[in-house]
């Protein structure tokens, strides 16, 4: 499963939202509330083995599926050189 599909299925399963577009704002469409956002962050850390800093928890990184995917990809890239 691609990153996008994994995150999408987590959001659909956890928050019981029906179809939503990749660019829909979670906040403005009311898809995820504040506790839900915390759960999304916990999911990203657990499932992708990332460590998100508190200062990264801003709308630019997390407010739509497109942004979350881009953010996760960026974090993965950052992590790779350290591992290798």
């Amino acid at each position, binding site marked *: 499963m691609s990153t996008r599909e994994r995150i999408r299925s987590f959001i659909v399963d956890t*928050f*019981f939202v029906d179809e939503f577009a990749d660019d829909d704002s979670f906040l403005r469409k009311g898809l995820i*509330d*504040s*506790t*839900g956002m*915390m*759960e999304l962050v*916990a999911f990203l850390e657990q499932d992708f083995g990332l460590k998100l800093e508190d200062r990264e928890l801003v709308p630019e990184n997390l407010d739509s599926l497109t942004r979350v995917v881009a953010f996760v990809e960026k974090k993965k890239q950052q992590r790779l050189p350290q591992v290798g």
Partner: protein
Amino acid sequence: MSPLPVPLSRELGTLLSRLKLRRCRAVGDAPTVLGRVWIHGSGEVRLGHRVVLDGRTAPIELHAMKGGSIILGDDVAIEGGASLEALQSITVGAGAKLGAFCKVMDNQHHPLRGNRHERPPSVPLVIEDGVTVGSRAILLPGSHVQQGATVAPGTVISRRIPPRVTVGGSPARVLRREVAG
């Protein structure tokens, strides 16, 4: 041994309980009220049959504000210090147990940003049949704890919890999933 014959003292207990519940819109058969129960607000509070409210350690607060309703099903048991605040609706299913000092509210009372004195919209809160809510757990607006689920003590919840699971922690995670049956 009670100095009164058992049936008589039981009658008396029920009578006393009913007196403490006089502000409820409806009270079912044989309510048991120990200690203090505060029922305030101009909304409606309805209790099912054989409800047990044990407010001996600290008062139980049932606060239904104007236009709000708190509905407790049959055989609901609530421990001391529990506080239910409804601006719209809180429903507790049959046989549910609410632990000491738990907080159940269907409105956050203040917005996160902007003018703190504006009241955000309420979201109805449902606790289904056979649910156990641990002590000091906090159920925020939008919580919907489904049949037979268990909320561990101190957990904070604000959304749907599937049937027969145990959730705990903050933010809440599913700790255990019981096999249906």
